């Protein structure tokens, strides 16, 4: 670097700090606060003795916890992982399909009660699922007496309970997307003699494929992080999901194992965090859709 440039840099250094530099400092501080608990649990997952008493982060390193995680038959982490993935995936795909189907009716068809239906959907979205917990528990218990596979302590019963909230979860958002697909497209198809089902499956679903895939992944993130419904629906160790199972490592004061929990948490969070960052812009637009426009 030539001395002339150095000189110029020196002159403007304070000015540049006042303009932009301090913002970098504040940003790094905010990032520090944001990621320190995550670094902490990452560090805990590498600690050998299982305690949380480490005063310094990353003071020891072993991958033993990640191996041990898969070797305890009374806390089958691998099974929990698989349970979470398939329960959430089935729930996500089916519920987005159901929502999209209903959204098509609201967007393209005209019928009595359409406006009232849309209003009802908005309100249902606001109904906190935990308030209906007693009733959902009752439904599953009753169903299980006749059809055990749809009852308590069964994955299909839990999926059914998740699907119960399907219509409220995404219909309104998908309805918004469908409205952005030009109506002229289906008008043209109509004139060519296409049926409503051909328009739905052939045009609308196909054109909104990417956005529906995003909806599926968002729904997947939400379902796989659910604690409440899963905790009342599932009992047996081999039936649990990650959210309910990982509790075993930290809730019992006598068998607390923070290193194992850390390893489990890192493995559980990794795909979700990656998905989330990848889908960030959709999450923001979905969250603020109605609000920022006005």
């Amino acid at each position, binding site marked *: 670097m030539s001395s002339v440039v150095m000189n110029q840099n020196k002159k403007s250094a304070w000015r540049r700090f006042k303009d932009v530099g301090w913002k970098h400092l504040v940003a790094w501080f905010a990032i520090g606060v944001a990621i320190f608990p995550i670094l*902490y649990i990452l560090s805990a997952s590498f600690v050998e003795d299982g305690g949380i*008493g480490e*005063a310094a982060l990353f003071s020891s390193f072993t991958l033993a916890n990640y191996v041990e995680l898969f070797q305890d038959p009374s806390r089958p982490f691998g099974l929990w992982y698989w349970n979470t993935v398939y329960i959430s995936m089935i729930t996500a795909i089916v519920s987005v399909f159901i929502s999209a*189907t209903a959204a098509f009716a609201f967007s393209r068809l005209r019928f009595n009660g359409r406006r009232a239906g849309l*209003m009802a959907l908005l309100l249902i979205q606001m109904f906190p699922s*935990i308030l209906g917990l007693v009733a959902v528990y009752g439904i599953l218990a009753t169903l299980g007496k006749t059809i055990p596979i749809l009852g308590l302590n069964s994955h299909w019963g839990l999926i059914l309970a998740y699907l119960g909230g*399907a219509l409220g979860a995404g219909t309104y958002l998908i309805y918004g997307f469908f409205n952005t697909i030009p109506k002229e497209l289906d008008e043209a198809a109509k004139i060519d003699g296409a049926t409503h089902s051909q328009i739905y499956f052939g045009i609308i679903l196909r054109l909104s494929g990417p956005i529906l895939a995003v909806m599926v992944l968002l729904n997947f993130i939400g379902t796989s992080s659910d604690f409440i419904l899963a905790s009342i629906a599932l009992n047996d160790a081999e039936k649990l999901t990650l959210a309910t199972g990982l509790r075993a490592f930290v809730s019992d004061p006598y068998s607390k194992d923070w290193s194992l929990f850390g390893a489990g948490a890192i493995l559980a969070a990794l795909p979700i965090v990656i998905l989330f960052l990848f889908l960030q812009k959709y999450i923001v637009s979905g969250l603020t859709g109605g609000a920022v426009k006005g």
Partner: protein
Amino acid sequence: MALSNSDLRKRRSYLDAAGSSSLRSTLIKILILGLVNAVAVFFGFIFFLQQNWGFLIGLILLVLVVNFVYFHPRLVPAKYLVPGLILLVFFQLYVVVFSGYIAFTNYGSAHNGSREDAITAIKQSAYIPLEAGPYYYLSLARDGNGDLTFLMAETETGKTYAGSNQRPLTEVSLEVDEFGNPIASGEFTAVSPEESNTIQEEIIGLRVPVPDKPQNFIATSDALTAQMFEYDLVFDEAAQTFTRNSDGVVFAPAQDGFFRSTTTDERLPTGWRVEVGLKNFETIFLDETLRPPLLKIITWTFIFSIGSVVSTFILGLALALLMNDSRIKGQKLYRGLIILPYAFPVFLSAYVWRGLFDTDNGFINMGLLGGAEVPWLETETLARIAVLIVNLWLGFPYMFLISTGALQAIPGELIESAKIDGASVWQQFSLVKLPLLLVSLAPLLIASFAFNFNNFTLIYLLTGGGPSSGDARLLVDPGGTDILITFVYKIAFASSDGRDYGLASAFSILIFVLIGTLSWLSFRRTKALEEINA
């Protein structure tokens, strides 16, 4: 252009059923409906065999509706709405209606089922051993069906018997060993000591009925000897009352769903479900014991939800203002890192923070505060502060995201003209940016308030509502960080014998009305409604 009649018909028919379906799609439709019907017939058959008429009628109605809608040439909107609506009816409408109904009952662990269920349970709940005997030497065996069976030799007479839950006491001829215990033979195979160790509960729970003596049964407490017991509570079909043999006290059914003694204050533990009118709501609003802890919980719920919204919004907005500067290099990377807490699943964050705040070993005490012993989650005030800190950490990335979005939507000309008019940076913010932001973000802030008002997961997983208040007057312990929804959860699910679904549902309804009203008010202000009305 003139349209022919047939053209018109074609046009109209599109909205209803549209033109001719292709053969393939018709086949697919028939195939799927056939599958649905086959599954329905299968379940219908099960319901029929179990004589579950309510389910059967419901299923038949469901099948009729589905077939009618999909085979009807019109009803197009219904074809698209039915799958979602069926689930909606069962899991949302039914849930709301059911919650509404049980709020007016005493449904709970003490009032779980019908009166018949209660009578059966009570009959078996109290029994006394017959001091005079008979006593038996006992061996464990399995009979031809694999059922656990008691093989018994009476101590006085030496007669040998067999009996199980299904098989009333019957005399069988068996050899006995040198201790007097019968030896399994014939259809019976002995249960090994290893196996009996694993089925202890089944052994203790086994009650052998005695023929011609419905009040008696044989049971064991040590798996080596058995003895005769007598049920203490006798039900009188005609009078519908229970009489306790040992002291002659009579229990009659009372209005509140319990058998109550006609002479003393005593009642039998198992009750049945009855409608109690407004009693649950009276408890909420009028009960003197409940009021002080309830008021405390409600106050804290508001402090928590408003405090969370305000703190996360201020921090998120400040960061958004700061980062909304195209001169910052690595802006994207910064944003990605700042929103990490929002991407991390909440159930994991809650556990991680629980570890961080641990008094003896937590990193905050050990690492950051150099070995201090601050009892973070153990005293009420500190636990509340901890909860607010954690929720600030969890929530500010969301506020950062939505504030950034809203800031970028503010037209640049507005800021430019404010600058030209000589507004200071603070004036630009407080007079131009903030009002515009608040207009667009107000509905989201209200939604965030509603969300935190019911933020069950965080409180439940971080502190479990604790620390305990030590208040033993209520069935449920009102903890220092309990918000309304976790308190309601405790009422409904916390203990195994003190569950009160009725009271919990009454609370749920009140919370829903509150949150519903708030949401309704905020929705009225949003663009969403204008779109519907268009």
